[in-house]
């Protein structure tokens, strides 16, 4: 793994860190599909 790849991913993690930190214990990927359907017209 190159230093450049590590730096790139570190920058992404930094950008998303605050949002990830706010995730409640119960969050799971399947909630996306439920949310998608909830907002369907």
């Amino acid at each position: 793994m190159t230093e450049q790849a590590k730096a790139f991913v570190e920058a992404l993690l930094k950008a998303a860190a605050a949002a990830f930190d706010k995730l409640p214990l119960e969050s799971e990927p399947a909630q996306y599909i439920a949310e998608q359907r909830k907002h369907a017209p």
Partner: protein
Amino acid sequence: MNVVALSCRELAAAILQKKISCVKAMEAVLERAHAVQPKLNCFIRIDADAGLEAARAADRDLARGFVRGPLHGVPMAHKDMYYRNGVVSTCGSKIARERLAQTTATALERLDAAGAIQFGVLNMAEFAFNPTGHNWHYGHCRNPWDPKRVTGGSSSGSGSATAARATFAALGSDTGGSIRLPAHFCGTSGIKPTYARVSRAGAMPLSFSLDTVGPLTRTVEDAALIAQLLAGPDPRDPVCDPRPVPDWTAQLARPIAGMRIGRPRQYFYDDCDAEIAAAMESSLEVFRKLGATLVDVDMPDMAAWNAAGVLIIGAEATAAHGHWLRTRPQDYSEQLRGRLQQGLAVPATAYIDALRLRGAALAEFCGKVFSQVDVLHAPVIAFQTPSIEETDIGGGERAVKLLANVTRLTRPGNYLGVPTVSAIAGFTKAGMPVGMQLMAKPFDETSALRAGHAFQGATDWHTREPAL
């Protein structure tokens, strides 16, 4: 009649009314395809004989009164990642150059059933993982408005050939902007439907959580027509949504007076080129004159969602390519190999957090944006169309920054999975098209399509043809 300038709907009507035969339509588009190919390199393969034979069969069907469907006899070429059983799909790669497909994509089956005739396959970014349209195996695809400039990607050939009148429409795919970017750069229409609205079965996967199938077209009306044929449940795609598809084409004629169109206050106009911003303002004024209400909307933290989207595509694409990355690394271009190696650096927890965040992100986006507006209007990209040469930078740090910048305004739409129509909103002083995004809430393709169609009824940007 300038056959190749017709939209899919117009050509289908002309064929049905026997103003033109399927063979004549095929001959016209083949002539155009052969004429532009040396300049644009938008095709990977032109199947002239098969296309003509299929067109003759379509004419025979019509002569005996059998109409296959709403696209009877309409010639199309598609991004070379839609599998047809027994035929090579290169996926724009060296690795799959001789790989025969073992199945036929649902999208192709549905277009076949509607009467469309495939006559070739189109250039694309290697494994659909590049947003500029460069391809170091098959040659870079070129922009019909200025062949020195990029087409956008990854559906580079779909944008270039559709704009050049070398196909009447084309399938693209959109994982981070790959329909909307070539639609912007090449001046076509298109739609990235809601994630899971259209089956991905038999389409080359890039990132299964984000991949979306959709068309690039000359008009939004054609985008509605084709997307409608593609959409709907498919037992071959486990995530494909089961809900029925509304009659989008029938909804297009409804006036948009009273529709609320959002103008983002943050993110989408950060560092935006002045000419692109001006084109966006002019297009908003068109919507206002059509009776829409313009609403300035505060955006949530789009940068975090953009980053989450990059983490997902990085991890999923690298996992999908793991075997070849280990056994045939030399057969990837330098740029793609570098991008896939980045995926190895994504921690499993970060990938999972990016997926865990997605539901909350969509809830927040719908709450903040779609509680106030029906459609969110935004630019596709913040800078003017670069040249192929200046962006032909392979891998390395410069490439990483460039690629991230190209998809900055489109990737959040994939992360959220919202339907987005692309339509041309104007031209720059240099004569290059400027596209706009029209985003709607999940499964509300209708609103985005209505807005785009109404805009094209009031403007003629989409009717301009590149001089080749």
